[in-house]
């Protein structure tokens, strides 16, 4: 369905950062299209406008290219929430967050919210292998279909408890506690007090773009958390510079005087 909101100026910005191939584009795609595709290339910045209540939230995906060209901090400027993504089967991807991406977030809003997301949880966690039924749509699951286990899904919780040792969990390179530790270091980097900030276990997610596991929970938790930021921004910018292109006629008229 085309969204009327595509024409509207967003009220708030959410940016997804992370190493190449951790599944940033897949996460956004899963959330917006309720689907998983094996290969989607990120052209330019993938961008999606989400209507959340009366607000428009723009979600920005980034590709390695922009980060390489130094556009990352431009993307993050004015962001109200940043999703730092790693791949649970790849320890290096977690390290990259701290080494390469954290500095890009310097341009984000002061009250920016950070979420740490370990994607591809389906590869390590039996719970995350269950396809989340979304709006009755069928998922094109790819080859993953056979792996599905007949487990009772507990209601999606932001942080799945580490599963007992199972053959698949051997792949897991990043534990949940490492993510929460990183979250703590990020708060310190930002000079934020741990007590007055959002708690780590609320802001560290493990997701699977492939099965949809925890994906809605991730985005919706963030959207709810950025609402105060929207309200603040609206109040600040009563005469804000965020004016639509519709104004171009008027502006031209002024420029030309009485032509």
């Amino acid at each position, binding site marked *: 369905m085309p969204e009327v909101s595509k*024409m509207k100026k967003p009220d708030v910005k959410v940016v997804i950062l992370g190493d190449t191939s951790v599944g940033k584009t897949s996460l956004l795609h899963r959330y917006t299209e309720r689907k998983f595709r094996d290969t989607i290339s990120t052209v330019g910045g993938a961008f999606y406008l989400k209507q959340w209540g009366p607000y428009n939230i723009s979600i920005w995906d980034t590709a390695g290219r922009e980060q390489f060209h130094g556009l990352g901090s431009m993307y993050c400027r*004015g962001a109200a929430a940043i999703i730092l993504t790693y791949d649970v089967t790849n320890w290096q991807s977690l390290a990259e967050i701290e080494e390469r991406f954290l500095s890009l977030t310097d341009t984000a809003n002061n009250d920016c919210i950070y979420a740490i997301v370990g994607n591809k949880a389906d590869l390590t966690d039996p719970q995350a292998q269950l396809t989340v039924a979304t709006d009755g749509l069928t998922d094109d699951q790819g080859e993953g279909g056979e792996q599905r286990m007949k487990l009772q899904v507990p209601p999606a919780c932001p942080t799945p408890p580490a599963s007992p040792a199972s053959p698949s969990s051997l792949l897991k390179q990043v534990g949940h506690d490492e993510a929460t530790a990183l979250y703590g270091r990020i708060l310190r980097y930002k000079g934020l007090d741990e007590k007055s900030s959002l708690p780590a276990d609320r802001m560290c997610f493990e997701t699977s773009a492939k099965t949809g596991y925890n994906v809605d929970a991730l985005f919706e938790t963030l959207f709810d958390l950025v609402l105060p930021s929207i309200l603040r921004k609206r109040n600040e910018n009563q005469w804000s510079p965020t004016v639509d292109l519709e104004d171009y006629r008027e502006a031209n008229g002024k420029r030309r005087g009485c032509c």
Partner: protein
Amino acid sequence: MSVKAFELVPAVERDLLMGDKARINVECLECCGKHLYVGTNDCFVHHFLLEEVPSPKGRIAYVAQKLQQKYLGLKKPVAELRAASALERLIVLCDGVLFLVDMATLETVPSATGSGGARIKGVTSFCMNGNPVNADPFCVEIAVISSRRRTVQVYTVFEDRVQLVKEVTTTEQPSVVSLDGYFLCLALASQYMILNYTTGASQDLFPYNSEERRPIVKRIGREEFLLAAPGGLGMFANAEGVSQRAPVNWSERVIGAAVCFPYVVALDQDFISIHSMLDQQLKQSLAFRDGHILQDFEGKVVLASTKAVYILVPLPLEQQIQDLLCGDRVEEALVLTEGAQPNIPRDRFQILHRRILQQAGFIQFGQLQFQEAQEYFRKGELDARELISLYPLLLPPTSSFTRCHPPLHPFADLNHLAQGDPGKVLRCKRFLISYLGTVRGTEASRVCREEVDTALLKLYAEQDHESLLDLLASDNTCLLADSAPWLEKHSKYFALGLLYRCNGQDSAALQLWIRVVDGELQDSTRPDLYEYIVDILTFCPDLDLVWRYSDWALKRDPKVGVQIFTKRSAGKDQSGQPKPDDVITYLEKHSHARLFYLEHLVLERRVQKEKFHSLLAVLYLEQVLSLLGGSRPPAPDQLSHARDRLQALLRESNLYRVQLLLDKMEGCDQLLLEQATLHGKLEDHGKALDILVHQLRDYGSAEAYCLWASSSSTSSSRQHLLHLLLDLYLDGGAGERAGDLEMAAVDLLNRHGDQFDAVRVLSVLPEGWSLQLLKPFLGRAVRASVHAGRTSRLALGLSRAENLQLLHDRLKERRKPILVSEKRGCHLCHNTFSCPDVVCLPGAVPVHTHCIAHRLSDSAPNTHADSAPDKHSTQNSNHT
């Protein structure tokens, strides 16, 4: 595939500019209204009048007329040209010098004396403020990049002079500048930045190597810029340095860019690429050799190669949208439509938008994407008839509907769409059912209620859909003339009947249904159709109809059929209900039904009318007689059942004509019990008991008779009856029956000892009876007598006491004077007394004599009426 959003139209051909002089190139452009100025590398400015002429096929063409050309005398290329139309000046940059030229004559404007003059030296580039901060319309603001190191200056330009407003320095050498309000957007050597020239606040945007690639800084609207970014991206940034729109993906070597909403147009050396700002997708790409300049002037995008000028004409939005729809690119078409909303007048937008949504719906429909189709139809407020008309025969021939023109879809009809695939046809039909179900009753479908309901009815009938009956049972506007043949075709006779009824044609409905019940027509919708018809007749207010069709119903099943009359409202308001007499006459032919009806009147509704009671009794009797007189002996329970009914009626009713029945039973000694009852009704108890005792010899019945016949009267009449019976027993005569009768007498006495007059009994009892035999009787009799004696004494005592009390009161009252005056009122009529003649009530209450007389004469019959009526006497009075 892409959209055709723009068309490249030549504006000024090579001949008009440089002819065949190979070394002369276009350097810069300015377009102001119809005036086009072109600066060339040989220091000329060419002035054209550009006329838009419609060409065949609705396209636009441009005809350029050269007004003038002027050599500026500097031998260097004209680097930049900008028009300040309010000042009638062109601002020209040539050879590092910025100066003013008259727009009409192209003469250089001499500097005004005294002031700073009308030229600025050492300029590498400049721009105009798209959002001026100065309110004076007769000046313009410009920003200038100075060839002095790292300096940007802001000037105000007047008709004949320029005035420096501000000078700012930058960290690196700027190469391109754009100005909006106080915000300078600059391309520096290694990055872009935004700089507020009044506050000095700056914001770095992102790195960009300006030496490697040409930077682009394009103001696209208030405080928003489009920038060429590394990696071939077109990035947006606002004055705060925030990117609010997603970037577009250009090629690496973009020379110029502009926004022509909703598109971003970019030029590189070989192509014009057009991206949508709405979804960031590349929509069109046009080959353009030697591309050199791309600029937009008041929404008009002008391009130049080195030798000629072109205009990029946007195709009408509607055409673009239609192109997209032709390619089934529904979402893009909608995004484009909705994106253009701010640029289209409101009502026109609504019409356009609705139409696009409808078309989109039909595209999805054609692909059998019903869910999506329905959503589009709903949003587009589709006239449901557009959809119905796709299905052959669903629209009533009387409908005035014609399909929208131009058509919303390419389909002739459903068969065309489904290409003969019956599965598809079926799915489409199911969709229409659900679709019409949802639009039915909405405001939007009000104009076509009849068509919607009729189409639904036809589909339901054809698909054997359960909702057919719901539709007809609810308030509907199905067209009878069009629907009836359809329902007949599908053997939906029950439904057709309902439709007749909806149209007030109850008679037609009944006729049709009767044919179904009679098996003439086949429709198994309602196996209980017969009962259904009876029900309808039962509650039908139209008596004509009731008389007309009840006959059939009664013939089919009298017991059920008679409900037409028995189940009718028995409420107070019997107007509009058939009169029982008429019903009975009507039922003459249907004896069973008549009996049921009479039973209903007499036994259920307890109608107190002699005629009905007598008739029912006679009918019961006839039934019994016919059973008795039948050739074969009747089944015993059948007979006893018939007699029970008869007996019960004879006993309980007081209204039937007793003599009539007695006459009918004359000589029938099988019905002695009944005869006894009848005699009883005539108060001929001797005869009745005689029959019971002597003919029937049924002593139990005789005793029961006594109790029954006296059940509602005083004990003395019961005593009388019991004595009558006792006497019968005692003068039973001789023979072996005498013993029997004596035993019956003893039993009677012993059972009802307290009811007899003991003295009388003792006087008639035979001497020889033993005391032992009569012990229970005597015991009871004595106890009853003692009880009666004591009760009387008690009553006597109480009466005496009362009498004494009254005497005492009277004496007391006598001694008191009773005051009567004209001011006192009578207690009965409340009028005053006018004469001393008064009566005094107990308690010394004076009243008028006439008042008390009145009161007494009034209450006398009342007290009489209040006392319990003597049942016996009323019974008798009714027997004639």
